[in-house]
């Protein structure tokens, strides 16, 4: 029996159908969760999909954060439930304080839709353990106007100390991008951070779109590893077969500098 994974739909979400498709392709049973429901309907994991929830008016993700469903998501996350935010979903998680940091307007002040490469900094998380070929950069699209990851130096040092950086923008060869390398780190994210994970290791967010790169026909299936990791971890969680996390973490260096 396929594991049930929730996909939250806010007014203005526009990657919900893509995410449902990618989850189903990965063998899960997607469950659509309307923003006004206060219950998660017993799903084993939740995805906050991309889009422009509430038009992204004011600040991306800020209005969505107050939807009834987010109270349920917060409670779910607090008891260790798996939550993944993609693009706008990441922005919502950040606004809700479920993952550290803030996402500012791209430094170039333009929306950017293009392919990027990201390195997986940790393979020992529920969102990354099924990614094949450790350290090989993953290629997938970004499409956002507010994706510049920001935290002050102290916050970033703390984040790195917690091993909270999950993905970093790198060049095609896998070398970590600098903050002003517009080619590899298009939105100017601090320390090239493309995705983060909370200290408890059960809530993660990233700006790139794995669900748009999960089938060869779309030019890359590098995103499938992330989706598969989530579905597999959700299945373990549902079956109660303990740790969704494989041990032997990959040293941070392995992924980045190559």
């Amino acid at each position, binding site marked *: 029996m396929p594991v049930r994974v929730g996909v939250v739909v806010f007014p203005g979400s526009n990657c919900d159908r893509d995410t449902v498709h990618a989850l189903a392709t990965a063998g899960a049973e997607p469950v659509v969760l309307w923003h006004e429901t206060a219950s998660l309907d017993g799903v084993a994991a939740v995805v906050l999909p991309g889009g422009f929830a*509430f*038009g992204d*008016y*004011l600040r991306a993700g800020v*209005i969505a954060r*107050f*939807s*009834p469903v987010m109270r349920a998501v917060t409670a779910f996350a607090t008891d260790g439930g798996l939550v993944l935010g993609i693009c706008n979903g990441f922005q919502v998680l950040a606004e809700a304080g479920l993952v550290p940091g803030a996402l500012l307007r791209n430094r170039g002040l333009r929306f950017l839709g293009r392919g990027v490469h990201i390195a997986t900094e940790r393979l020992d998380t529920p969102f990354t353990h099924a990614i094949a070929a450790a350290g090989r950069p993953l290629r997938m699209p970004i499409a956002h106007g507010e994706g510049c990851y920001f935290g002050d130096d102290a916050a970033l040092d703390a984040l790195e100390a917690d091993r909270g950086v999950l993905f970093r923008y790198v060049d095609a060869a896998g070398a970590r991008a600098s903050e002003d390398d517009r080619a590899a780190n298009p939105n100017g994210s601090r320390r090239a951070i493309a995705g983060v994970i909370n200290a408890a290791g059960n809530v993660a967010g990233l700006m790139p779109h794995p669900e748009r790169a999960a089938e060869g026909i779309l030019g890359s299936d590098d995103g499938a590893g992330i989706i598969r990791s989530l579905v597999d971890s959700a299945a373990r969680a549902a079956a109660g077969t303990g740790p969704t996390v494989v041990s032997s973490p990959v040293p941070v260096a392995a992924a980045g500098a190559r």
Partner: protein
Amino acid sequence: MSSHRFAVNVTPKPGILDPQGRAVEGSLGHLGIEGVSAVRVGRRVELTVEALDEAAARAVVERLAADLLANPLIEAYAIESIAGASSTVGPGDGA
């Protein structure tokens, strides 16, 4: 020469649709906030001008606002002179 700090408040003209204002109003229910209406969302630009005197400085801001900061077709603007400190108010200090 003296230095003057101004703020230019740019707001959607009356009658012009303000999608952001509408979205904020619509979301108040979720925050359990009542009695709020006529929400308009605009921009606030704070800047420092070096000029001979206040009047000269204001003239510069006036031009900047009209030519660059506001779109006269859909936005109105107002210029206020502010204390250098006002942009550094932290949360809570507001009230």
